[in-house]
């Protein structure tokens, strides 16, 4: 929120969505003005972000989580276990007759740091890092695809206006009316069955593609709506008019004039989208329509955990706590990114 006095100092001429954008940077007084002279909007954003301690810490946490996921094979190699070997079944003395770990706390010891999976007796630590790798890469791909589609549909609708805008708007409405969880659960097996006959085992990469496709279909609408609104107001601004009068082709206007002004909402919104996709993919696995078979998966650890929690709650704690840390850090990071881009919006 901007207090009237702040707005006066900043001299923000046009209140509008782009008041928050990049080309009308607020200046908090004379000292800051000289300080910020000759810096690009990106540098300004970076300067503000660095000052935000919560943001920097959460960025570190998020980076570490991504690094852990990306380095899963390295971690597994250093640690000397892999997520597929059924240690509890090959080695006697690790699991008891009911296939639960013999040692307390889910079989945690100096060898199996996070314990063993009840039943199959696989190592929990490597399962978790490999599972994070699966879930995070799925979520990243879904986010990128959704953002791209949202940009295409939002910018096309907002910039073209008229009939295309009307139809794209109705399409967005339609997609928003789908009960999305139900849609995911119902269509993931259907699309899978279309591609592979039910007798055959579905290859892992294909299953991942199906998941990505289904989540992508219903993932772009919020951002598309937001961008359409932004483009509608930007379209009337003087610099776009000027570009039009100067005879700039539409494609160039969109690329050079519109898109740079949409970076803020896109970045902010995608930091909110990604954790949602992580939990969404995990939810699907929990309901039994996500990744299958021997592919380690973050969400399926919860499904296993829900089966065994009465006897062995420890198994669920590690994936659960890891997910809470990831989501909290990512949400805080999202808030900080928003504040850094858009210092006028108070929390």
């Amino acid at each position: 929120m901007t207090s009237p006095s702040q707005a006066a100092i900043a001299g923000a001429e046009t209140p509008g969505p782009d008041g928050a954008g990049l080309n009308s940077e607020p200046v908090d007084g004379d000292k800051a003005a000289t300080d910020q002279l000759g810096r690009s909007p990106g540098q300004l954003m970076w300067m503000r972000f660095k000052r935000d301690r919560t943001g920097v810490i959460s960025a570190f946490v998020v980076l570490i989580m991504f690094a852990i996921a990306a380095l899963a094979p390295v971690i597994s190699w250093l640690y000397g276990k892999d997520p597929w070997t059924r240690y509890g079944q090959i080695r006697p003395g690790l699991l008891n007759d009911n296939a639960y770990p013999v040692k307390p706390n889910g079989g945690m010891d100096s060898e199996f740091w996070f314990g063993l999976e009840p039943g199959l007796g696989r190592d929990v630590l490597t399962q978790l890092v490999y599972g994070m790798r699966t879930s995070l890469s799925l979520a990243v791909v879904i986010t990128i695809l959704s953002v791209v589609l949202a940009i295409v549909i939002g910018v096309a609708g907002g910039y073209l206006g008229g009939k295309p805008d009307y139809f794209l708007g109705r399409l967005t409405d339609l997609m928003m009316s789908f009960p999305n969880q139900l849609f995911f659960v119902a269509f993931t097996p259907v699309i899978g069955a279309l591609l592979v006959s039910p007798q055959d085992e579905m290859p892992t990469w294909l299953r991942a593609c199906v998941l990505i496709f289904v989540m992508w279909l219903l993932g772009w609408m919020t951002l598309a709506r937001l961008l359409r609104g932004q483009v509608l107001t930007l379209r009337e601004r003087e610099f776009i008019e000027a570009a039009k009068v100067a005879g700039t082709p539409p494609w160039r206007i969109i690329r050079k004039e519109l898109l740079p002004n949409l970076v803020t909402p896109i970045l902010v919104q995608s930091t909110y989208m990604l954790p949602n996709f992580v939990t969404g993919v995990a939810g699907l696995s929990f309901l039994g329509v996500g990744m299958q078979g021997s592919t380690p998966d973050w969400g399926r650890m919860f499904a296993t955990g829900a089966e065994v929690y009465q006897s062995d709650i420890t198994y669920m704690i590690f994936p659960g706590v890891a997910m809470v840390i990831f989501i909290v850090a990512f949400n805080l990071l999202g808030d900080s990114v928003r504040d850094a881009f858009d210092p006028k919006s108070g929390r």
Partner: protein
Amino acid sequence: MLRFLVRRSLGAMVILLIISAVTFFLFYAVPRDPAMLACGKNCTPDALEVIRKNMGIDEPIPMQYWHFMIGIFAGRTFAQGACPAPCFGYSFANSDPVWDTILDRFPTTVSLTVGGAIVFLVIGLGAGMIAAWKRGTFADKLFSTGSLVLSSMQIYFVGPLVMALLVFNLGLLDQPSYVPLSEDPAGWFMGLLIPWMVIQIIFTANYTRLSRSSMIEQLAEDHVRTARAKGMSGKFVFFRYAWRGSLIPIVTIFGVDLGSLLGGAMITEWTFSLPGLGKLAVDSVANTDLPMVMGVMLFSATFIILFNVIVDAAYAFIDPRVRLA
């Protein structure tokens, strides 16, 4: 107002029609023969043909869709017997009428939704208001941080944790279950207590954040400041002036949440094995029970769309400045 409602209802019909068509055609594109599954091991081609006819899947797919849609409005006759007006056919898995099954499961979902909504509205709005009232203090920070951490918890993680603690370790409550309210109000309440406490975690944080920010916005409004300047008490202004104004954005979100919850809270129902619409949907998907999936899908979508219309109409009542066009 009437014009608005008529127009929106027509739009809703079109959307439902498209959703039903998409669901129907996608499902029939699957190269899995439900008749084959129902027929079992010792299946003869003749028996298969009879089963196909009984299921109503011996016709071309567009005709099947046509009969299906007619059945919803006018009823139709199956081999099992006549199926009265809102006819969604019979389950492929157990031959129960789809509509009766949905009606049978719906009370569970409604109980879960209504109880959960009361919990998250009370906690969420309450915490948000206190945070706005005591802005910048310790209480504000506590509620804001708390809601952030809570919203990052997932039902499939917290559910088993709460169950392990309250049911299996401390033995304070029984395993969640659904008993109809009319039969045993106390059992209904105790059986759903844990699901209510758990389902609210994903919603409460949203409401805390939203009610806090919209309350702060309202408190800075001119009419609120004027009321305060006239000498009205802080509490009176807070509740009668600012609170009413702050409800507008909350009503929108609440309508959307309620609509989607009534269509079945899948993960919650699955976690606690509550026989609601969400669990019905997951089970029918696992059984390739097309009529059941269609029924639940349309039922859920209807609620989502219905509540969108209600929210838009409710705007005009809460905020007289809004004109319905």
